[in-house]
């Protein structure tokens, strides 16, 4: 009789241990699956973050290039006025007009016509110039 009880106790203990092991195994498998899924999501998140960083760096580079181009074009746009001021300082138009009014009239007329053409050109939405208005540097 004692052997039977002892057998039942041992079987009970072994069954409990086995069931506990089964639960532990099942729980561990679930945790592994969850952690694997988490890991995959984290890797995706890292990839997205890296792509975002790359995109931001690309944008920074693009904006820097655009800004450089803009500054260059803004500077180029000053050329016409600078050249005109230099021309006016170089020549005494009053003296020339007194001496050779016909010649100066022709030059002024041509320069004015070119200036009107320049205005039409630079305001043309489909127009393309090689630089910011320096082609017609002799206007006026």
């Amino acid at each position: 009789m004692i052997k039977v009880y002892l057998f039942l106790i041992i079987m009970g203990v072994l069954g409990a241990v086995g069931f506990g092991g089964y639960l532990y195994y099942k729980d561990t498998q679930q945790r592994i699956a969850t952690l694997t899924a988490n890991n995959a999501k984290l890797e995706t998140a890292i990839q997205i973050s890296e792509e975002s960083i790359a995109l931001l760096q690309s944008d920074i580079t693009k904006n820097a290039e655009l800004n450089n181009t803009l500054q260059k074009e803004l500077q180029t746009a000053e050329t016409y006025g600078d050249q005109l001021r230099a021309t006016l300082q170089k020549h005494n138009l009053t003296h020339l007009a007194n001496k050779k009014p016909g010649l100066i009239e022709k030059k002024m007329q041509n320069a004015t016509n070119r200036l009107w053409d320049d205005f039409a050109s630079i305001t043309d939405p489909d127009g393309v110039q090689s630089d910011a208005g320096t082609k017609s540097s002799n206007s006026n």
Partner: protein
Amino acid sequence: MGCSLMPEPKVVTVTNTVKTVVPIVAHPKKVQLNDVRIYVVSKINYDTFVKEFESKNGADSYVALSIKDYENLSLNFAEVKRYILQQKQIIIYYENAVSPPGDEKKGDKK
């Protein structure tokens, strides 16, 4: 890893990309300017000018500018031209900044 009795927290990643789309409007049409006739008059050609001007325009009234004022007028127009060019470059800059990559205009397009 937490306590064995607690379930592992699930990582939830939410990617929300918001891209601002700015439509690029058409540029205004180019200016259409009228011709302006300039006369340069000094003592040398004053009489000839008066005769020719009157016969051509039917009157002897005219607007006169000194050479200095003509120079100032030229410089003023140069300033206007500079402003238009720079304003246009700034517009192109912003258009390129909001354009998708590879769709930028060239900087020298006026």
